[in-house]
């Protein structure tokens, strides 16, 4: 059984702090419920947009859409299989559904329905999974540490792991415009706003270089892109020059950009909020191998194990997702 070490006496004991644990660092700008607001705005322009949830509207920011467009929200109850089946039927009737639940339920529990009702007929259904990777301290029942590994082999499915509120706001209309099925790893609640400080626009299927650097290349996805940017900034003080290539679309994977950047003789660190099995690290590794490109490649990701329960910052430290852990790893590997 996993256990988190007892906190040092005298310090404030960190708690699992409810389900709404924020991933924002101290002092970071945030936007509230960027997914819900983006979907509600999109629905103002597109009457075909509808929303569903499986008794988790409030916890997937879908409540914002529900309040704005109550006639276009369908509550399916705690029944993920029925929700994805119904999303398929809504799409067959000509509507464009966004269906939200936790990632663990969308993938592990309702896989057959995502696969056969949505992906096989190639319907424009957008599945939104909250609590991807390690974004809750509730333990394995809620931590979708292998959702990318489960879904990457599904034919025709587009998979997006956004970094921040900017990414989410731009991804939502892009996913609705994309004709086939998609899966969005949701960041909910107070979501960091970071990418507006960079010359960045979300483009489905495309990686984006957020900063250049001679010594290290961070190839990152999801919330780890924000951590990579922080680590790169702090490493400047150690005279380490780190580039950041953000890969928001896990599938289809931008192999061309990844291979091009990884071939430039730098330490390559992949960073993902996901198991080191079957996610970004192995996507990068296989892209390089198939292109006959070699690199000093080191993964930052979650270990191949069922993770502990506890406070999120403690767990991120423990499993190596914190900025401090990233900097330590770079210093060791250089």
């Amino acid at each position: 059984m996993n256990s988190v070490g007892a906190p040092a006496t005298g310090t404030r004991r960190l708690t699992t702090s409810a389900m709404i644990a924020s991933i924002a660092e101290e002092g970071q700008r945030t936007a509230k419920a960027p997914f819900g607001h983006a979907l509600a705005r999109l629905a103002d322009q597109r009457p075909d947009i509808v929303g569903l949830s499986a008794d988790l509207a409030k916890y997937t920011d879908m409540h914002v859409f529900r309040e704005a467009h109550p006639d276009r929200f369908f509550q399916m109850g705690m029944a993920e299989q029925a929700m994805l089946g119904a999303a398929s039927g809504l799409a067959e009737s000509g509507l464009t559904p966004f269906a939200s639940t936790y990632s663990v339920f969308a993938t592990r529990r309702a896989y057959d329905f995502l696969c056969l009702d949505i992906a096989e007929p190639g319907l424009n259904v957008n599945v939104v999974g909250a609590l991807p990777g390690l974004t809750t301290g509730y333990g394995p029942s809620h931590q979708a540490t292998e959702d990318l590994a489960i879904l990457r082999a599904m034919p025709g499915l587009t998979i997006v792991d956004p970094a921040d509120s900017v990414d989410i706001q731009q991804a939502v209309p892009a996913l609705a415009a994309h004709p086939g099925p998609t899966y969005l790893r949701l960041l909910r609640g107070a979501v960091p706003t970071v990418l507006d400080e960079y010359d960045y626009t979300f483009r489905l299927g495309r990686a984006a270089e957020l900063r250049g650097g001679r010594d290290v290349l961070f190839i990152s996805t999801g919330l780890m892109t924000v951590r990579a940017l922080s680590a790169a900034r702090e490493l400047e003080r150690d005279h380490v020059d780190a580039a950041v290539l953000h890969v928001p679309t896990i599938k289809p994977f931008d192999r061309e950009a990844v291979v091009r950047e990884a071939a430039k003789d730098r330490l390559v660190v992949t960073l993902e909020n996901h198991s080191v099995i079957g996610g970004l690290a192995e996507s990068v590794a296989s892209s390089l191998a198939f292109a006959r490109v070699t690199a000093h490649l080191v993964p930052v990701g979650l270990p191949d194990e069922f993770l502990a329960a506890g406070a999120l910052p403690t767990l991120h430290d423990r499993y190596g997702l914190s900025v401090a852990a990233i900097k330590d790893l770079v210093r060791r590997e250089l």
Partner: protein
Amino acid sequence: MAPTATTTPAAGPRTAPPASHAERLRALRESAYRIRTHALNMAEVQGQGYVGQALGVADVLAVVYKDVLNHRPEDPEWPGRDRLLLSIGHYAIALYAALAEAGVLDTAELETYGSDGSRLPMSGMATYTPGMEISGGSLGHGLGIAAGLGLGLRHQGSRAHVYNLLSDGELDEGSTWEAALACAHHGLDNVTAIVDVNALQADGPTNGVLRTEPVTDKWEAFGWHAVRVDGNDVDALVAAFDSLRTHRGSPSVLVCDTRVGRGVPMLETREKAHFLRVEEHEWQIARDQLTERFHAECADRNAATADEEHTA
């Protein structure tokens, strides 16, 4: 492939002036007979192919495709159509026969059933076949899709109706009951489930694999308007669908008790199995028995009618 039976006249188009009730039933029984004939022919080509289920469900499909569904055979994608979702992908043989009977498919295409490159695979798939609304086969999917279609069509003001044909074995699947809750919760009176209770599933009789009875009570407890009929009695089926057409406020389910192999005495009495065993030389015997039984039943009914008229 044996020629399609020509001993009975082709059914008239639905635009024909309203026929008498007796005429309506007679035409539907002929449709069911032709569906059975098509199914036997297809199964012979394949050497197997869920012929027991097809013979059992033929009456239901004849009534649905020739009397219930508002659809346009020449335009299977017409947005205003009523939809029949086939959950039970292995019943595709019966559905192809019904689609041919309805004019969606050419009868000649049926002989490609299950062959390489055919639009008629052994397990039904929407992307292969005109008129096949969903890819069934992984059981417990159809009713959830029906719920979404019902919601979506209602939301867009469509009067189209959604039918989902499922089997009693499919009632084992939890997702069927998730969807049953959803349809009832949302008051989807544009959704009708048709449950083919042939009391048989892959590992044996349903009551020995996983008991699903009392089926009607279960649907009622889930908030559905439930009617149970003999699914091989065309008259009863027509009356049931007519009564369901006017039902409002909740989804409906028509529970149909059917007999595996129905219409072919040799197969009705054969040991019941998911794959009904038929030897190569038996296909022609089966067709002969089907035709013989069909004509005998017609004659019996005519005699009964004459008796009634005489009595009157």
